């Protein structure tokens, strides 16, 4: 038997055939738990030896079955996920955990239960504000979730196992950050396309295997001589889900490298650690409600303050992006969103106000989650590059 592949090659293999490892593990008697978006708490799955497996769509596969259950005016990514579910591509899952990422995501969990009928399901009604009461609510919801997982496996989730799981997931977060450090030099040591492959791969395999993969990728990337070339533009990519390399491939096919991102198959789930608190669930609740910066959450500066200050509000919401732009030395930002994503859509004017104010050029691209529809965006991106260079 050939030596199993490692590093970037391994990441690419998983990227192309992502259920392969999950199917093997299932054969070995492991439970595979599908999860939608990045709000279901993975540590609790790991603590019970459940394999978390992120549900993605497929922008290369036309949506044919989902039309009957979800109108076309809804998020095409979520419609694609449902479509794959209806085409039995997720039949190997033992369960699915969803959260109130957005209303369409919530609707999807009901529709999925009605049509795909994965044996176990649980929905976390993640609050949308950072009010004190919301944090308490999230904590309670995680207790329910914990109990649901315990009932599902028939095992108790010990505090010790949960702490261990938090440590190994934090290790993953640290490794991802280390990987992103390698995008700071010019040229970056790893491309935007490769980054998506790696992140998608680690979201498809158990966390310890993901950590091993990340370690291999990091040492490979540091040593190789055939990494990305220097280009005129270093870009920061912000936006809704990108679970396919098509868009960064198009961008990096032009005179630009994607050196930093704020997307959920990118840096978004990994840039803050979970604090191991006295009561472990407190730390998890805080992290999953407050640290993950998806526009689905309403963030503001001090919500009890009766005065309003627009620029300060923008600062609180988006200053981490200007940090990214500074530290990764980007000279432009691409704001990208799948069509019909309301929460990302509402952030666009404010975020562009913020970036304009800092003198950082930006462009907003909307796409309908099909590979073919990316072609017309090429001229927009190239035009943007011509402006900023």
């Amino acid at each position, binding site marked *: 038997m050939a030596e199993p592949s490692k590093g970037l090659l391994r990441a690419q293999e998983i990227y192309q055939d992502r259920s392969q490892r999950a199917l093997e593990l299932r054969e070995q008697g492991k439970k595979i738990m599908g999860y939608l978006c990045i709000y279901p708490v993975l540590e609790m799955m790991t603590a019970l030896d459940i394999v978390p497996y992120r549900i993605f769509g497929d922008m290369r596969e036309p949506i044919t079955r989902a039309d009957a259950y979800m109108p076309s005016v809804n998020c095409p990514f979520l419609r694609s996920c449902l479509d794959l579910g209806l085409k039995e591509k997720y039949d190997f899952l033992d369960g699915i955990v969803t959260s109130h990422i957005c209303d369409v995501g919530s609707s999807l969990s009901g529709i999925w239960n009605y049509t795909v009928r994965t044996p176990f399901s649980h929905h976390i009604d993640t609050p949308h504000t950072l009010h004190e009461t919301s944090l308490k609510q999230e904590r309670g919801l995680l207790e329910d979730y914990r109990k649901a997982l315990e009932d599902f496996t028939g095992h108790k989730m010990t505090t010790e196992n949960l702490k261990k799981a938090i440590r190994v997931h934090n290790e993953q977060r640290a490794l991802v950050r280390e990987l992103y450090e390698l995008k700071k030099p010019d040229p970056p040591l790893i491309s935007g396309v490769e980054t998506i492959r790696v992140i998608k791969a680690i979201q498809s395999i158990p966390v310890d295997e993901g950590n091993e993969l990340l370690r291999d990728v990091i040492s490979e990337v540091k040593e190789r001589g055939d990494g990305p070339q220097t280009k005129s533009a270093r870009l920061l990519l912000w936006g809704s889900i990108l679970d396919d390399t098509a868009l960064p491939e198009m961008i990096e096919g032009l005179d630009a490298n994607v050196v930093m991102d704020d997307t959920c198959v990118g840096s978004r789930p990994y840039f803050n650690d979970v604090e191991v608190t006295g009561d472990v669930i407190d730390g998890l609740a805080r992290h999953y409600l407050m640290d993950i910066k998806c526009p689905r959450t309403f963030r503001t500066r001090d919500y009890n303050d009766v005065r309003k200050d627009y620029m300060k509000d923008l600062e609180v919401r988006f200053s981490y992006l200007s940090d990214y732009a500074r530290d990764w030395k980007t000279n432009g930002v691409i704001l990208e969103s799948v069509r019909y994503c309301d929460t990302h859509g509402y952030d666009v004017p404010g975020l562009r106000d913020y970036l304009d104010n800092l003198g950082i050029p930006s462009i907003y691209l909307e796409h309908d989650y099909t590979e073919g*529809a990316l072609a*017309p965006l090429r*001229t*927009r991106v*190239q*035009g943007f590059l*011509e*402006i900023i260079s």
Partner: protein
Amino acid sequence: MVLIYFAGIDLGSTMTKVVIVDEDDQTKASVVYHTGAEHRRLANRVMEESLAKANLSIDDISFVMATGYGRINVPFADRQITELSCHARGVASFFPHVRLAIDIGGQDAKGLKTRDGKLLDFVMSDKCAAGTGRFLEVISAALGLKIEDLGDISLRSTQKVSVSSTCTVFAQQEVVNHLSEGVPLEDVIAGLHDAIAGRSARMVNRLKVEPDVVFTGGVAKNVGVVKALEENLGCPVLVPEEPLLSGAIGAALLGKEHVLKALARGETIQTGKRRLEEATFFK
């Protein structure tokens, strides 16, 4: 090497345009071809014809810049640049004080914020026939009219109707309904022009309109749309003598500037392999 001629080729979705300029920016030849889907790849013929007109061979051309929808597929181009930058540059060569350029072509509409021939910002329409030349083509074909007559017909209108549908197919239904209700043809056509102009005006609002406003692209040949655009924007709209050529001229000029800059830096000019072959559009 003596620098003399620069060519710009603008491979658009419905029209292919070539312009050859000399070192004083004077146009030596310009050719416009209606390139339907099947002819799209024949960019080389248009190039050959322009060379013949200018009495030149391809080797006399110092630099060929390609632009437009098909820019990456031109085998004899030395470099590609988007039609956004090329239009901005080209329009400024006719109207130096242009701040906003609106280009409505066969397949899309664009708004360019520009200064001194440089592109500062832009907006583009979504992939949709409504609001483009294609829209007028479809409707004039359905009504059995020549597209070039639409402008004059609409000028006779005294009371234009409103065409509210944003979809070409629905708009066509609306037009037929209006006509069957006895609305005069010129009022319906004027309504169509208003719908196109309104769409573009809304789109460019995002760029904060400032004069001079220049209108280019095939649709700019339609006086009815020009008038409607002026009404919608509330300011005069300038149209170059040959509104189809701004992209190709811009490409030629940007090619020249590229060469001059390279030479000023003491670099040799990187030109591609010149193969005067068909464009490989459909791989």
